[in-house]
């Protein structure tokens, strides 16, 4: 770049200088030659006047010779007089004897022009006689328009040429100087131009590497300054855009990473581009390991792989429910959407939604509805059937009619308690339940409840020990806590043996009060313990019904305690009794 500019400078100087000096030289040479010619011609006219026609006619060599010898030094030119035949009559440079020996000059171009054409003959020629370039002027000498001879003046051109070569030398020297100057100037100018350009190159290289911290400092008003300003503005815009994009990316990746739904992005060859942490958790893989692998390689699941392939080949989104057995039994809703780029499928976005819990809750609800309908229909069947039987004649069957009525009564009562429990449950489950929280004396509440069970306890000869300290107060809704005690004591009573015992006591547990209701009954098989608080879950269905249980008692206890911010549990061993406990806040 720099060298190119310098060479261009030199080239321009060379051309302009060369052309100027060429024309100058040419002009100068022609000018000086024509000057000399015209002055020589006027001298020739002057001399011609002094030549007597008579002596020329006579061929008076001596008088002519004397004339040329006098005039020649005065005009500093060689003078030659030639007759009309071309014979030299007198020459300023020769003696009369030598003159006669000189060759005939008729063939010389200037003489010929003068004699044959009667005009002034001019010629520049190398004179062999003198050994230098000579200018010849031949003037015809006429008498009554009859040519008598020729007067020739000759001037050596040595001086003219010397002057010209001096001028040429000066021009050449000037040229060299100009070239040198051009080189230096070119160097300085190009350096001045290229330095900011180099700086721009450096900074823009940094820009291309993504480093926008630098700016080009150039406040000049020229093109370079404008370029710098534009580049700086571009860098600023780029930096802003990149920051914006980075921020958007961060937001996106935050969403991507924090989504509960699993997300898989695959390219058109079904190779994984990215998976989010939810996927890592679901399939037990790592994003770093999965990237670049096909889906089937990374996650050995045929079903989802098929879905992805379908979407990639057909370009239509799919939504499929997939059940996963490993690493755990889970149900997923898999939504696969094609990613389009220029109207062709370029990949696939898979969103995996874990609906195990939703399905589980649906199943529970469905089971609950089925259970409720079964639990309601069973006593209804008995009531309806026995009433029908009695009406159809069994009323007169003395042996059975009372028994049938008793059965009807039992079932009516069961229906009643079932409806009550269901209403309690639905109230407890409704979101807008409000508890009347007061300081509740647990011991007093337990005593009241125990009192209500008096006759049943006496019948089974079961002893209840209320071991709750009389000063324990808890923050609770008294009516609800009464219900908890009622249901737990009811269970402890129902599943107890004859002459058994029920103990109620409390202990401090993590700053809370833990109340324990312990019985000496049949206990709960270990496999049933995890489900014992579920609605309608019964260890022994037939026995529970016989005892008038609804299967909802413990479920209600759990709900109430949890509404109070506590928790329930049970420890039991089959045959030796159960310990139900619940915690409440002090």
């Amino acid at each position, binding site marked *: 770049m720099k060298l190119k500019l310098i060479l261009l400078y030199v080239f321009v100087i060379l051309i302009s200088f060369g052309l100027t000096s060429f024309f100058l030289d040419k002009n100068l040479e022609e000018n000086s030659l024509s000057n000399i010619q015209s002055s020589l011609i006027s001298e020739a006219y002057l001399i011609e006047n002094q030549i007597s026609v008579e002596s020329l006619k006579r061929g008076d060599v001596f008088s002519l010779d004397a004339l040329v010898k006098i005039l020649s030094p005065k005009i500093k030119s060689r003078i030659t007089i030639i007759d009309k035949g071309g014979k030299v009559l007198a020459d300023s440079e020769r003696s009369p004897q030598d003159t006669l020996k000189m060759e005939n000059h008729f063939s010389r171009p200037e003489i010929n022009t003068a004699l044959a054409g009667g005009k002034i003959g001019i010629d520049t020629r190398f004179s062999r006689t003198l050994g230098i370039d000579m200018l010849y002027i031949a003037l015809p000498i006429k008498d009554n328009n009859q040519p008598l001879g020729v007067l020739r003046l000759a001037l050596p051109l040595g001086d003219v040429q010397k002057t010209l070569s001096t001028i040429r030398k000066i021009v050449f020297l000037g040229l060299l100087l100009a070239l040198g100057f051009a080189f230096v100037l070119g160097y300085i100018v190009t350096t001045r131009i290229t330095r900011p350009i180099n700086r721009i190159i450096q900074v823009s290289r940094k820009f291309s590497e993504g480093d926008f911290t630098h700016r080009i400092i150039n406040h000049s008003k020229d093109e370079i300054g404008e370029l710098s300003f534009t580049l700086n503005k571009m860098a600023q815009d780029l930096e802003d855009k990149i920051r914006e994009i980075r921020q958007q990316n961060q937001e996106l990746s935050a969403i991507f990473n924090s989504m509960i739904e699993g997300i898989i992005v695959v390219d058109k060859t079904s190779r994984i581009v990215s998976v989010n942490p939810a996927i890592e958790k679901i399939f037990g893989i790592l994003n770093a390991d999965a990237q670049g692998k096909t889906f089937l390689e990374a996650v050995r699941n045929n079903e989802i792989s098929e879905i992805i392939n379908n979407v990639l080949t057909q370009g239509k989104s799919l939504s499929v429910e997939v059940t996963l057995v490993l690493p755990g039994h889970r149900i997923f809703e898999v939504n696969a959407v094609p990613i389009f780029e220029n109207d062709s499928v370029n990949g696939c976005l898979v969103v995996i939604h874990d609906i195990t819990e939703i399905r589980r809750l649906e199943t529970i609800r469905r089971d609950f509805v089925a259970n409720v309908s*079964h639990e309601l229909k069973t006593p209804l*069947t*008995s009531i309806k059937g026995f009433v029908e*039987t009695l009406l159809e004649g069994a009323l007169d069957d003395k042996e*059975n009619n009372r028994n049938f009525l008793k*059965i009807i009564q039992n079932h009516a009562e069961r229906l009643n308690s079932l409806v009550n429990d269901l209403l309690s449950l639905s109230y407890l489950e409704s979101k807008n339940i409000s508890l009347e929280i007061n300081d509740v004396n647990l011991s007093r509440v337990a005593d009241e409840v125990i009192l209500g069970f008096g006759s049943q306890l006496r019948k089974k000869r079961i002893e209840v020990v209320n071991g709750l300290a009389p000063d324990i107060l808890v923050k609770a809704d008294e009516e609800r806590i009464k219900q908890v005690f009622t249901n737990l004591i009811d269970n402890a009573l129902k599943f107890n043996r004859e002459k058994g015992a029920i103990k109620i006591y409390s202990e401090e547990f993590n700053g809370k009060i833990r109340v324990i209701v312990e019985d000496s009954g049949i206990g709960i098989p270990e496999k049933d313990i995890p489900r014992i608080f579920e609605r309608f879950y019964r260890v022994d*269905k*037939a026995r529970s019904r016989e005892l008038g249980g609804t299967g909802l008692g413990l479920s209600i206890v759990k709900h109430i305690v949890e509404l109070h911010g506590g928790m329930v549990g049970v420890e039991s061993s089959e045959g030796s009794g159960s310990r139900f406990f619940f915690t409440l806040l002090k």
Partner: protein
Amino acid sequence: MKNSTKVIIIEDDKDISSLIAYNLRKAGYSVEQVFDGYAAAKELRSAYFNIAIVDIMLPGLNGFDICSQIKNSDNPSRGTFVIVVSAKTSPQDKLYAHIMGADCYFAKPFSVAILLDAVNEVRDMQNREFIINQK
């Protein structure tokens, strides 16, 4: 009005079981009562019953299992007419019961009189078939 038709009642609710039993006995049937799935399976292997009245929700084997056992086994109970009596009333349950071998489906709460009519009808049909086979 004694007849030789034997009926087995497979129902875990003792009151419902005795309700059906009382009415059938009064109508002259010989009635057997079992209260869980395993006992029913055992009973069906050892004796032949003309009619089985089966509940679906049973402890042990459920009513569907009992149906299929009755219809697919080599034991004497094959040919037993199966009447399902259940609180399950969804069309799916009814269809499934029929696929498993139920001949007739009563939803709880049912009318004792109608159940008795059905049992009588089955008895008459079976008696006619018996006479035809004898001829």
